[in-house]
């Protein structure tokens, strides 16, 4: 008896707790994140129905049997099998089709977009802006000096790099496309900002583009989301989204 009720309890508890889910998610700060929230909601409704349905059915099966009612039972039914196989196929593949929209877009250079380089290493973040000339200067490992203030290894001999701005926080203009170019100098890291609802592994040896566009000003935390060593949980930085005039002012001032 109690085992049947147990399954009902699971269904109920699960449903209640999931109804509370908006409380857990951080604010969505760009249009992609809003789209994510919608997609998540659809999947949650589908899986929620299946979750509750399966548990109610399971509980009912147990209770029914224990009451010793010799009700109908089925040993095999081709109709039922075809029905539930095709229903799940349509449902799951439909979800998949929904989820794949918008995924296979390789970021391209849109005119007027900000390009910012992101440098991850054990265990800190650095961000580089190209400066007024819009060109990133050359870098090389042999110039890297964390204590000497050159964490990304800017070549002092390269004039394009003289106006490059290296910052410990990522500042971006609100409402404009930003193309992040992700680099790692040692192991695999991952650039993760919860409010953007996306993350991207940073693989050493590759330059990986990530397009973002923040619609709300504010400060958002950047975390590393790929195990990178003993300081993995300490790689903290901030994404600071500022209105464009403030942003331009900040760039000029540094």
């Amino acid at each position, binding site marked *: 008896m109690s085992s049947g009720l147990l399954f009902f309890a699971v269904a109920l508890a699960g449903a209640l707790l999931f109804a509370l889910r908006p409380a857990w998610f951080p604010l969505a700060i760009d249009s992609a994140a809003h789209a994510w929230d919608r*997609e998540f909601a659809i999947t949650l409704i589908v899986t929620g129905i299946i979750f509750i349905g399966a548990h109610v059915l399971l509980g009912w099966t147990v209770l029914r049997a224990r009451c010793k009612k010799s009700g109908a039972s089925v040993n095999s039914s081709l109709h039922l099998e075809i029905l539930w196989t095709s229903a799940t196929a349509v449902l799951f593949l439909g979800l998949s089709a929904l989820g794949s929209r918008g995924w296979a877009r390789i970021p391209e250079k849109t005119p007027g977009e900000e390009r910012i380089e992101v440098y991850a290493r054990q265990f800190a973040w650095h961000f580089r802006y190209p400066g007024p000339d819009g060109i990133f200067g050359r870098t090389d*490992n042999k110039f890297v000096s964390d204590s000497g203030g050159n964490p990304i290894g800017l070549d002092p001999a390269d004039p394009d790099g003289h106006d490059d701005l290296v910052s410990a926080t990522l500042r971006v203009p609100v409402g404009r496309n930003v193309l992040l170019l992700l680099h790692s100098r040692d192991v695999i890291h991952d650039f*993760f900002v919860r409010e953007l609802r996306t993350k991207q592994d940073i693989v050493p040896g590759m330059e990986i583009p990530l397009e973002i566009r923040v619609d709300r000003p504010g400060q958002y935390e950047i975390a590393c989301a790929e195990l990178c*060593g003993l300081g993995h949980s300490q790689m903290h930085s901030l994404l600071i989204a500022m209105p464009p005039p403030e942003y331009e002012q900040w760039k000029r001032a540094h």
Partner: protein
Amino acid sequence: METRALSRRMRVPRPRAIVRAVFSTDHPAIARQYFFLSLAAVVFGVLLSLLMRFHVVHPTAQVGWFERLWPVKAIGGVMTPELYLSLLTLHGTVMIFFVLTLAPVNAFGNLVLPAQLGAEGFAFPRLNMASFWITLLSFGILIASFTAAEGGPLAGWTAYPPLSAVGAISGPGEGLGQTLWFVSIALFCAASLLTSINFIATIVDMRAPGMMLMRMPLTCWTWFVTAILMLLSFPVLMAAVILILSDRLGGSSFFVPAGLLVGDLDIPHSGGSPLLWQHLFWFFGHPEVYIAILPGMGIVSAVLSNFSRKPVFSYRGMVYASVSIAFLGLVVWGHHMFTSGINPYSAIAFSVLSMSIGVPSAVKTFNWIATAWGGTFELTTAMLFALGFVSVFVTGGLSGLFLGQPTIDAYFHDTYFVVAHFHLIMGIAALFGIFAATFYWFPLLFSGRMLNETLGKAHFYLTFVFAYATFFPMHFAGFAGNPRRYADFTSFDFLQPLLPLHRWITHSAYVLAAVQLIFFWNLFWSIRRGRQASENPWRATTLEWSRRRGIVVRGPYEYRQKGGERDYIMQDEPDAGATV
């Protein structure tokens, strides 16, 4: 000295009894050896996880005996992040390999497979014995890796390069510890290969007369497809381990690109691809999780059928579903790599295939419920665990539908949402399958005794409740974007409000672990003093319960609904003698 005639010419002295017992080629004895090995492994793995959970909620706590155990990595009695990460690595490795691969496949397969097929024994008994001892050696080397000078490896059970490939410079424990870890894994691959050869040859060639493939019990089917999965996936892991050991020790650059600066050391490798490791690893890694769950599914089918006194609903459907799950499991590995930097178009292909696995899984779930529907229940502990399996499998499997969509996965990847998903499915569902098998086949494992049912039921209810209480809330930590493999949460503002949730999880985990003591008490008491079972205590139809050793004349699961004592017919029971 006894001799035993091997041929008319050669006489070999027979080894002493103790040697024969220890190096036994007898499959029930080997099954017991594997059973106790995975029991030791699970205790070890659980203790590691409790240490991890403790640290997560008390990152700065000073614990005297930490320092005694780990003088370098827990200096002052405070667990360092590198110690946490090495505990985490060991936890994953021990649980996935030495519990979830060994217990369902090796322990119970060895116990029951030949008997269920009506075979005299396995095809290669000595290979079987060798497989156990290689596994034990592998376990020993794994422990050694953990106790090496600078500590155990901290790269996780996934061991992604370059972190795991460039040596000690990338972290404490990444020197000798990581190398020994790779050696242990290579040995485990070899042992698994021997097991899979044995299982496949036995199933293909040694079935009793009349045991057609479509009359095999579903447990044999799941062991069959599991053995094939092992055959196809473990060699790939072995190849990857050879390549990475070559990078570590031989100076090659299969996985290490050029221009790395780790710490302040320029790494001399060049031209390799870290993604290559991920492809090879996950080509193994995804089938591995199906290896962990498929035998449990077979056991659940058998147990649900037996204790509902009804045939399995759509035996054929179950067979096709098992084969589909295994086949699809081989082509979906990319879903572990959606955010890794793979081609987005291949990500879509992997996504569609991954979501498709939900279809045979759902078919199985419906079939289980339909099997139980309208049955005359006997709610034994094994039956409770089988029903519990269905519940946890549904819960854990549904979160997979989120993770199988690349855009949604982009948020949840490497967060506690994934941790919830795999713990519910592997840590709980697969474990419930193992518990069900233990209660069901205990008389075959330990000389005809039965486990105590009262203790068993108490164990089930408490485990069910506290397993959900521990792992379900992890979904919510995932919603909040809580990254996984974090030694502590002190560096991030957004993690502070989650601490009460983590304290709940930790305390629930303590209780969940403590509750397992009921099972251990039951186990060790019943081995000695358990109630003696009758010949076929569960009134089952499959051959492991039969003394007849005759020809197989019907399918498994021939239960009838007429009630009374004889409501079943065994597979090898001649028609004339049957009463209905």
